[in-house]
């Protein structure tokens, strides 16, 4: 699929990644849902912009996260706001994605606050841990961070798997 193009802007300390995601939800009742697509991640530290695209490359939604507010803009122009981005992504993809945690996990570190059973790989990089109800496995590191992230969450009603593959990226 065409992952969305990296979002422009060159503020200091900007972290950019583009890649693909697969989201799978197994419901306790036995139903299953899944969605695949591309994403473009542009994080200036203060503001995060996340574009979610369908496999043929057209952007379906843009989630913008500023201190204290997250905004979802859909391709049909509808706009929604919420204090935290994870719930907004669920509205687009049908399952939450740990966007707040990923601002740190994508850079190979746990988010501030409680982290459990953290393990490092042979090169001392963070390989697996549990945080905010998610179990994360990070691998295929490049200079910027992991290029493969497998995230799992088991709630009472559903088991969620998020798999992110990074294709491209830069930090400026």
């Amino acid at each position, binding site marked *: *699929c*065409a*992952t*969305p*193009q*990296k*979002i*422009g802007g060159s503020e200091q300390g900007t972290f950019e990644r*583009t890649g*693909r*995601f*697969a989201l*799978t939800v197994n419901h306790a009742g036995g139903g*299953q*849902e*899944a*969605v*695949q697509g591309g994403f473009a991640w542009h994080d200036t530290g203060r503001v995060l912009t996340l*574009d979610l*695209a*369908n*496999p*043929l*490359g*057209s*952007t*379906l939604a*843009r989630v913008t996260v500023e201190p204290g507010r997250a905004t979802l*803009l*859909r*391709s*049909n*122009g509808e706009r929604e706001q919420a204090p935290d981005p994870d719930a907004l992504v669920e509205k687009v993809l049908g399952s939450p994605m740990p966007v707040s945690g990923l601002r740190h996990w994508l850079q190979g570190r746990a988010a501030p606050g409680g982290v459990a059973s953290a393990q490092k790989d042979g090169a001392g990089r963070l390989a697996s841990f549990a945080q905010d109800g998610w179990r994360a496995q990070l691998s295929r590191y490049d200079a910027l961070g992991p290029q*493969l992230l497998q995230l799992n969450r088991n709630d009472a009603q559903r088991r969620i798997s998020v*798999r992110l*593959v990074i*294709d*491209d990226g830069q930090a400026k």
Partner: protein
Amino acid sequence: WPASGTQQLRDFVAQVQSASGRFTQQAGDRQGAGKPAQTGEFSFQRPGKFKWDVRKPYEQLIISDGKRLYQYDPDLAQVTERNVDQSIGASPAAILFGSGALEDVFELQDLPPRDGLEWLRAKPRSADAGFTHVEIGFKGSMPQRIDLLDSFGQTTRISLTDIRANPKLDAAAFKFTPPPGVDVVKMQ
């Protein structure tokens, strides 16, 4: 005088029942700065069977047997399987590979020629088609370029090359069997 884009589209839909070829796909913003292009192979057979097989820089397969649409990404280790109508609907694939009446789903409009091609613009009639419009450039009643503008100003440029019209495609060309051990998610 070459026929207009919309006329060449009608000829294409009428004369070309199946085709195969290669594609290059490049996403980029308005200035066109983009990522490395994806390249791969495509084929289709009306009505509704098509294969969009990205080979580089990563592998990703989208294939439809006319009833079910499969998406397989080896890196993501997942196959999704869903009904064709849910997904094709007003997608660019529908324009080229479908066989429904295009005017029902799209507003078609001829554009001035450029890059040596005759162009048309197809604007989806439904607001949530997920893209603003798609422009298709024709030559000899065959699509050569597809430019897809999404609602966030991103343009995906697709070039089609080495197209063979009405090739002999074997029956299994659009059959997909998930590789063993890969998570297959069936959607209603």
